[in-house]
């Protein structure tokens, strides 16, 4: 960091008129960060004696004070500005996250309450009905997904491929080809049904004849409940369910995808798994009969046993 004129550094303290301007602005800046004007003024004072007295001294003092007050004001304004700018964003975000979590918790609570009540209803109904009717009803509920079932079956695990990480920026590449899509889950579920599965759940969400598996934004919703990778598709069915499923087109496709994109695809037998009941479909058009009627469908033209509406 040597300048062209080492014996004569650009220090205006010495001689105000013969100042040497360093050729390198940054070198000068690093060496002498103080505004040269101060040194100039000091040199002038030394030449012409002390600072001007009289009325000007208090005035300059006052102007300095005003300037400093303006600087303080500026700091506060900038601080408030920065403070008001940032937190409003993060506060809104945090508030939304809290709301989501609250709603999710209350949904869980309501669902477990509904499950308990449904079990109560089933028990009371079984007590009211005779044995064969109750058994038939339970069988139908198990088949339609409205009752908890357990048995032996298989678990098909699908997982997103690990997203590619950019070596330079360290950011994850969002557009990955190895993501599991809603179509994939649909294909697997359909292949399992075709292979003889009697009950299927995806990550604990029981599928019924009206279940939906679809994408909303970046997430996959099964019956409007978000599920995330890895996806465990659990199915209860005959002993050769796994073997039959392994021979389907969907299984072949996923083996190929797993080899090509690094997605996870595992098929394993699972003994004595329990699948939860699906959410009972909402009745939209059918209404429970209010009057005491001798037969269940005698005076009620609207079928009350089939869930209508199709949506859910």
């Amino acid at each position, binding site marked *: 960091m040597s300048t062209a004129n080492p014996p004569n550094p650009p220090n205006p303290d010495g001689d105000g008129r013969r100042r040497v301007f360093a050729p390198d602005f940054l070198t000068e800046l690093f060496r002498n960060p103080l505004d040269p004007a101060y040194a100039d*003024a000091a040199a002038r004072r030394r030449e012409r004696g002390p600072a001007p007295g009289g009325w000007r001294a208090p005035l*300059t003092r006052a102007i300095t004070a005003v300037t400093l007050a*303006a600087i303080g004001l500026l700091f506060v304004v900038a601080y408030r500005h920065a403070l008001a700018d940032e937190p409003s964003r993060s506060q809104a975000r945090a508030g939304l996250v809290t709301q989501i979590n609250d709603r999710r918790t209350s949904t869980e609570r309501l669902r477990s309450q509904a499950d308990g009540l449904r079990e109560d209803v089933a028990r009371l109904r079984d007590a009211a009905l005779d044995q064969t009717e109750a058994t038939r009803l339970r069988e139908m509920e198990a088949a339609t997904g409205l009752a908890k079932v357990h048995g032996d079956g298989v678990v098909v695990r699908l997982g997103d491929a690990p997203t590619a990480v950019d070596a330079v920026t360290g950011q994850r590449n969002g557009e990955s080809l190895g993501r599991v899509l809603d179509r994939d889950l649909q294909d697997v579920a359909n292949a399992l049904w075709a292979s003889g599965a009697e009950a299927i759940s995806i990550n604990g969400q029981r599928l019924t004849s009206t279940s939906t598996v679809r994408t909303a934004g970046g997430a996959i919703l099964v019956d409007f409940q978000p599920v995330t990778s890895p996806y465990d598709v659990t199915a209860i069915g005959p002993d050769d369910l796994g073997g039959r499923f392994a021979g389907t087109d969907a299984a072949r496709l996923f083996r190929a995808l797993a080899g090509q994109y690094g997605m996870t695809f595992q098929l394993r037998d699972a003994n004595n798994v329990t699948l939860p009941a699906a959410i009972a479909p909402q009745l939209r058009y059918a209404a429970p009969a209010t009057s005491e009627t001798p037969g269940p469908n005698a005076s009620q033209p609207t079928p009350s046993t089939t869930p209508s509406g199709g949506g859910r």
Partner: protein
Amino acid sequence: MIAVLALIAGVAVGIWWEPTVPLALQPYLPIAVVAALDAVFGGIRARLDGIFDDKQFVISFISNVLVAALIVYLGDQLGVGGQLSTGVVVVLGVRIFGNVAAIRRHMFRA
């Protein structure tokens, strides 16, 4: 002493008054703060060096803020965005750093 009191008074006025910055002036605020910091640290250092001068202080502050604002404005108009103000921040930042180092040497003899 008066200077410190004036600074505190300015902060107090800002807290009490709660002024809002017009939208048009908001881009200049960060740069103005950096320029003000440079002026303040330069003044403190000059004070410690024994060469403080009221007139120089006021002029350096005003000119710093004006030049910084001008550069930001120019950058905006030329469409180079924040790159010109990066230059301002670098230059003023180097000066602040050097002056703070000098103040440190004055106060702690190290």
